[in-house]
C-alpha cells in the first residue's frame, strides 16, 4: 500500500528532518530522544517553536514536557485541531 501523507504530516516531517538532521523516510511514530542522538533538549525546543510557527498554534508547557516521541507530537497537534490522518487522498 502506498502511503498518502497529508500536507500537515509532510510539514511535520520536514521540520523534524531539518532540525534533527535525519532523513524523513526513517522517521516513525516511535522516533524519540532515546533513539535519536540529535534530539537534545535544545532541538526539542526548536521543534516546538517551528511547529507553533508553522501551524499557528501555542502549546502549553505541560504539552511540551509530556512529549516523548513523534507519535506524541502528532497527538498534541491533533488536540490543536491539526489533521494528522495519513492515508488520505
Amino acid at each position, binding site marked *: 500500500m502506498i502511503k498518502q501523507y497529508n500536507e500537515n504530516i509532510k510539514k511535520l516531517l*520536514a*521540520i523534524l*528532518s*531539518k*532540525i534533527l*538532521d535525519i532523513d524523513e523516510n526513517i522517521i516513525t511514530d516511535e522516533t524519540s530522544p532515546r533513539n535519536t542522538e540529535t534530539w537534545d*533538549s*535544545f532541538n526539542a*525546543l*526548536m521543534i*516546538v*517553536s*517551528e511547529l507553533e*510557527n*508553522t501551524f499557528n498554534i501555542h*502549546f*502549553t*508547557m505541560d504539552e*511540551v*514536557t509530556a512529549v516523548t516521541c513523534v507519535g506524541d507530537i502528532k497527538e498534541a497537534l491533533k488536540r490543536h485541531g491539526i489533521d494528522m490522518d495519513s492515508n488520505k487522498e
Partner: protein
Amino acid sequence: MRPTSNKTLSSIISSQPIRGISDYFSINRKIERAIINNEILYDKSINIAILSSFTINGIKETLRVQCGEFGVLTNFYVGGYNQYAQEILEPQSGLYKFNPVLVIIFIDTRAITGDSFFLPYELSNDERQDWIEDKVNEIVSLAKVVSERSLAKVILHNFEVPAYSPLGLIESKQEIGFIESIEIINQNIREQFKRNNQVFIFDYNAFCSYVGKQNVIDYKMYYLADVRVNPQYIPHLCKAYTGYIRAIASLTKKCIVLDLDNILWGGVVGEDGIEGIALGPTPDGRPFLEFQKYLLSFFYRGVILAINSKNNPADVIEVLREHPYMLLRERHFAAMRINWDDKVANMKSLAKEINIGLDSLVFIDDEQVNREIMREFLPEVTVVDMPKDPALYARTLMELDIFHSINITEEDKHKGSMYEDDKKRRDLLQSTNDLTEYLRQLDITVLIEEANTRTIPRISQLTQKTNQFNMTTRRYTEQEITQFVNSNNCRVVSVQVSDKFGNNGLTGLAIIEKMDKRIWRIDTFLLSCRIIGRKVEDTLLAYIVDEAKKEGAELLHGEFIISKKNKPADDFYSKSGFTKIHHCGELEVWEYDLMNNYPFPDFIEVIIK
C-alpha cells in the same frame, strides 16, 4: 577578508528555501560538512565570539548561513552559560585564545536586575542611584577590557526597557523610576563609547520595540530552558549583526542605481508628462516624496546615487530641473543613463563611469522582469525586491543593512559631495584638451602624513577595497596596519588630495619596509581610483625617494603583483625609472637607484605633516 570565490557555498545556501529557523539549522549543517570535507576553499574567515547572560543557541547557526549569503565564512566561539564576566576578565580565557574579529556581548535586562526585575521598589531611591552607577561601571569596564585586550570590534547590547512596572500608572511619578533606571543605564553606556572606534552599542531595546516586546520573549522557552530570545526572532537579530560583519569584511555597498518611473515618482513621465506624475504632498505623491527624502539621506551619508532608466532624456531632465517637489536633482547623481538601451549594458557603463565595481552597486527597479534580468546577467549587482506598493518603498530602504560602515571616516561623511566634485572635474577635462593644462587648472594639493590612530581605519579600508591602482593588492586589517606603524623598520605613509573642486580625503598610501641600511622595500603602494591620473602617485613616490635618501638608503625596491584588476598600475615602476631585477611567480621586484633624483610634479602643492 575577500569573499570566497568558491561556488559551493552559494549553491549550498540556494539548495533550499529559507522559511524558518529550522532551515538555517539544516543549511548550516551542510556548510559545516562541506568545510570538513574541504569542499569550500577560502582565503580568510571571520572569527566571531558571542558572550551572553543566558542560553543563546541558534545565533551561530543562523549567522553562518546569513554571512554565507554574501560570501563570508565564519567561525564561532560561544561563551559558557552566563560566563561572560569570567571570559572577559581572565586573560587566558577561551575568548582571547580564539582571537576574535568581532565580539558580541549580549547581557539582558533580567540578568542585571535579578530579583529587582519584579520587586524594583525594594530599593530606595538612593540605593537605585547606586545600583545604576554600579551596573554602568560593570558593563562599561567589561567592554573596555575586551577592547584593550583584543583588537576585535565589540557589539555591546544595550538593555531592553521593560514595558511593565509594578507601580503601573504612577511609575512615571517616581523620583528615579524602575523603567527610568534602565533608560539611564542605556544613555550612560552609549555616552561612554561615543568616541570609541572599537565598541559599538547595539540598540537591542530598539530591536525589541521593532519586533515587539511581547513577542521577543517566549515564556515557555524561558521557563523550560532560560531562552530569552524567541527562536523565531533569532534570524532578525542575526540580520542586524550582519550589518557589522559586512562592514568588517569591507563588503558594504557604495552606490544605488535607480529606475525612475514608479520609483522616484508615480506614473510614467513619457506618457503622463511633468504635470501628470505623482510626486508631492498628496496621498499618491507622498510615498515617492518620502522615498526621495530617504535617498537624499543616503546621499548625505556617502552613498552614491545613479540613474538607469528607459526614458526620453529631455522628459527626465525637465522633471529633474523643473518639478517643484523633486528633491533629487541632477547634482545628486554621479552618473545617469536615460536611454532605450538595455539596462544591463547601462549598468556596466555606469560602473565604468563612476569607477566602482559591479559588486558595489544596488539596483532599484519596480519591474520584476528588469530585476530578474539583472540578477541573471550581473549576479554581482545587489537587486532589491521592491514591494508592489509604493507605500512600502521607504520602509524597504530603511531595512536594507548593506550600506553600513563600521568606521565612519571623514571620507565617508563627504563621499556624496566628493562624487559631485568629480563630475565637475570630468566636465572641466572635457572642456580642456591638454591634460597637463587640466591638471594645472585643478590646483591640486597633496598632504602627506605618517599613519596614526586617526588614519589607521581608513588606511586598512583602502588596502581592503582598492583594486585598480594597487601595486601588490595586499589586504591588511587595522590590526596589521597598527603592527606596521609600531614597528621600527616600517613606515606607513598616507596622502590626502584636494583641489579647487573639493577634498578627496585620504585616498592613497604606501607601506615601506626598511630591509637594511641600504634597501627600502615598497610593500604596498596604492591610490583610490578616484584620483588616478593626477600625478599623485608621482608625488608620493617622490616623497618616499626623498625620505629614503635622508636616511642614507641607496636602493628602493618596488614590488608588483599582477591581479585581474590592477592593469592601471602595471607600468608605474617602469615609467618611473625603475629596473626589473627579479621575477618570481607573480611577484616582480623593481629597483630604483637612489643616486638619481625623483622630482615632485611642479603643479602640485605638497604639504608634509
